């Protein structure tokens, strides 16, 4: 079929001058359409608005080989449905104004998406050319598009181009010449409605035959009608006899899924053309991602990899971070305390106690966390940078599905490893209110980086070389407890359903060392600021409570508070000091260590770790770590839970739940560990 010749006959009858050609540039936004328009028209262009619309209209003219070419830059559109003013303008211009030629600008780097518009343009019976722009970007991304094969597959001319470098303009003008001379042949291969709805389309074709306004191709009008296009629906309704229209309307109601069949036909058409023309070697990022994801997102293998990565993080912490922390504790903090005592020798006793026990003992102990927390920052930052974190959330989501939990739940939960606050905030993604409440209740069970640091600090005091295994086991156990609690709550209260859940996974990336180092530096500074504000304030409060009223720790206000709650602490093997340390962790989890630093600063000849390892048994240490991991979340998280649930009831439910689970688990662990002689 030579559409050009058909058109020329039509044009001649309409009196259009043969030496003037009107060309419309169509394409999706950001495909380089305007660049091509500017390249061709130069300064000879006019900008206005489309009649009756606020959408910009650009048109221009240029001379080429004694021909005047009138160029119209159509608004950028993703399709030719009647979804937006831009789409209506573009399609009505092509259908009603009937340009001599439509040039579709597509991006080689994003061909699948670009071809969707082409799949609609190609059925409009106006001669069509395709400018395959951005072939350089496609090559940079590791694949090539063969313009000749694409031309053969689609059946219309395809001109490769790099508009940003004005490369390929000559080729485009040559094609215009050929078009002018009637030498171009068009054999468009059109998308087809899927076979199961072909008969419906044929029926509609028959019913609208003879009633479709001249400027609408019948084939296109029937497809748009089946797609539910409101504009075509109203037009045909107004021109068809009532009885015939009612028949059509009944067919449309019976075949509401016809739109899906038409769209499906377009995607099959795109897929065929992509398969023919795109050469994508499986060695690029996508290939690597596919290969890595076979393991990283495997339902079982992915969980094993996640467990190994968590273990590796702890191994690094204990191999590098803990020795530095212990060195800072014994070689900096202890001498600093002694030095402060010498400097303040003439100061009142309470000032010496405030500086040595309150500030150095409390804040100093937390500052020695820095090497440990830097490793957590580095590990989690690295995993985020390379694109692993999304996979970790995905495999856990798979795991949660087994347990009957909502699909989206683990995505926010996974943020909890950094901080529970964004985890609670992240539940906004869950539309179902019961599922959201359940996820909010579970979020504080995820061990945040502050709790992980407390565990990493304490574990070596009681378990030496085995600290790595113990910590790793504790983290995996806390995730297991989260799952068990989630399953129970879900089954008993929320009755969750298994729904499909599709998650976008980023490509793996090689991390940028400079960015990673900058992030670690910024987070370390933030941590030190945190230690110098919240932790310092709490350390001073704890010190004051431990000092007053009489200067004797055992009769202090703190001891009185501690002794009041000590009976509960005893279930877990904790004395009043450890119980108080646990309670102060409500303000910030690191306060547990700051409080111990204040309370044991009085025997500061030894480092804090040595002191507590000599004071308590490993069974007590283990119970303290368990209760710390599962205890009520910090004040910031509680505040966010109240904000997100909008209810004190659910906030209290969370606090009580965490108290019951943490005290229950720690009591059980203490009982078992004691029987084992730890």
């Amino acid at each position, binding site marked *: 079929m030579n559409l050009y010749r058909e058109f020329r006959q039509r044009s001649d009858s309409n009196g259009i001058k043969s030496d003037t050609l009107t060309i419309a540039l169509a394409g999706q936004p950001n495909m380089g359409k305007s660049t091509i328009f500017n390249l061709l028209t130069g300064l000879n262009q006019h900008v206005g608005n489309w009649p009756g619309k606020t959408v910009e209209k650009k048109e221009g003219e240029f001379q080429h080989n004694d021909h005047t070419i009138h160029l119209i830059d159509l608004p950028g559109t993703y399709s030719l449905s009647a979804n937006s003013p831009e789409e209506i303008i573009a399609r009505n211009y092509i259908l009603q104004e009937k340009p001599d030629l439509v040039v579709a600008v597509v991006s080689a780097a994003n061909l699948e998406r670009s071809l969707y518009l082409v799949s609609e343009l190609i059925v409009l019976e106006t001669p069509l050319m395709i400018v395959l722009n951005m072939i350089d970007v496609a090559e940079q991304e590791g694949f090539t598009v063969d313009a000749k094969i694409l031309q053969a597959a689609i059946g219309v001319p395809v001109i490769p181009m790099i508009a940003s470098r004005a490369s390929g303009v000559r080729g485009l003008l040559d094609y215009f010449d050929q078009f002018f001379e009637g030498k171009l042949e068009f054999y468009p291969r059109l998308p087809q409605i899927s076979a199961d709805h072909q008969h419906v389309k044929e029926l509609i074709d028959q019913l609208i035959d003879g009633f479709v306004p001249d400027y609408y191709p019948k084939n296109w009008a029937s497809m748009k009608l089946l797609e539910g296009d409101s504009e075509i629906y109203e037009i045909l309704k107004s021109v068809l006899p009532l009885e015939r229209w009612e028949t059509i309307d009944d067919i449309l109601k019976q075949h509401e899924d016809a739109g899906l069949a038409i769209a*499906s036909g377009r995607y099959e058409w795109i897929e065929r053309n992509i398969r023919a023309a795109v050469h994508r070697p499986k060695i690029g990022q996508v290939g690597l*991602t596919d290969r890595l994801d076979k393991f990283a997102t495997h339902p079982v293998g992915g969980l094993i990899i996640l467990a190994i990565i968590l273990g590796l993080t702890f191994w690094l912490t204990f191999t590098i971070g803990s020795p530095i922390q212990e060195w800072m504790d014994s070689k900096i903090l202890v001498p600093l305390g002694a030095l402060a005592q010498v400097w303040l020798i003439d100061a009142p006793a309470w000032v010496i106690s405030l500086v040595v026990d309150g500030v150095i003992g409390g804040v100093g102990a937390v500052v020695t966390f820095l090497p440990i927390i830097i490793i957590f920052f580095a590990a989690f930052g690295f995993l985020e940078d390379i694109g692993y974190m*999304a996979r970790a959330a995905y495999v856990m989501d798979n795991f949660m599905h087994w347990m009957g939990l909502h699909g989206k739940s683990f995505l926010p939960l996974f943020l909890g490893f950094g901080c529970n606050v*964004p985890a609670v905030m992240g539940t906004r*993604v869950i539309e179902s209110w019961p599922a959201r409440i359940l996820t909010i209740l579970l979020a504080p069970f995820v061990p945040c980086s502050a709790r992980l640091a407390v565990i990493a600090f304490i574990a070596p005091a009681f378990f030496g070389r085995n600290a790595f295994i113990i910590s790793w086991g504790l983290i995996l156990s806390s995730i297991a407890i989260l799952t068990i609690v989630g399953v129970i709550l879900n089954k008993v209260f929320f009755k969750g359903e298994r*729904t*499909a859940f599709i998650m976008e996974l980023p490509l793996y990336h090689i991390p940028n060392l400079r960015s990673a180092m900058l992030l670690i530096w910024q987070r370390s500074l933030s941590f030190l600021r945190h230690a110098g504000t919240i932790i310092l304030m709490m350390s001073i409060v704890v010190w004051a409570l431990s000092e007053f009223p009489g200067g004797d720790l055992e009769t202090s206000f703190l001891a009185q508070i501690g002794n009041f709650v000590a009976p509960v602490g005893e279930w877990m093997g904790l004395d009043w000091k450890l119980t108080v340390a646990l309670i102060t962790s409500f303000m910030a989890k690191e306060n547990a260590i700051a409080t111990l630093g204040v309370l044991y600063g009085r025997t500061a000849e030894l480092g804090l770790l040595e002191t507590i390892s000599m004071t308590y048994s490993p069974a007590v240490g283990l119970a303290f770590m368990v209760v710390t991991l599962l205890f009520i979340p910090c004040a910031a998280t509680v505040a966010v839970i109240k904000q997100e649930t909008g209810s004190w009831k659910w906030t209290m439910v969370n606090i009580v739940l965490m108290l019951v689970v943490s005290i229950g688990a720690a009591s059980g662990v203490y009982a078992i560990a004691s029987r084992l002689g730890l």
Partner: protein
Amino acid sequence: MLKKLLDLIHQGGSLTPITLAQQLDTSPAMVEMMMEELTRRGLLKVSEFEKNCDSESCGSCYLTKTCHSNTQRVWTTSTKK
């Protein structure tokens, strides 16, 4: 092609555009386009999961200023069939 994709999604469970593309023998970009089509038609629901790390959302967290705020798209099946 869209129906095949819908059938796969309706089988339930956790999926990614990559795993769906492997099962349909096409590219992840095609799958994403088709999921957007199904979303437009009300057959899927899309949500943008954000780490809401800004001073308004988590002002009390000391990592607020250094926390990356990124967006991740997730799709779930709609009740409309």
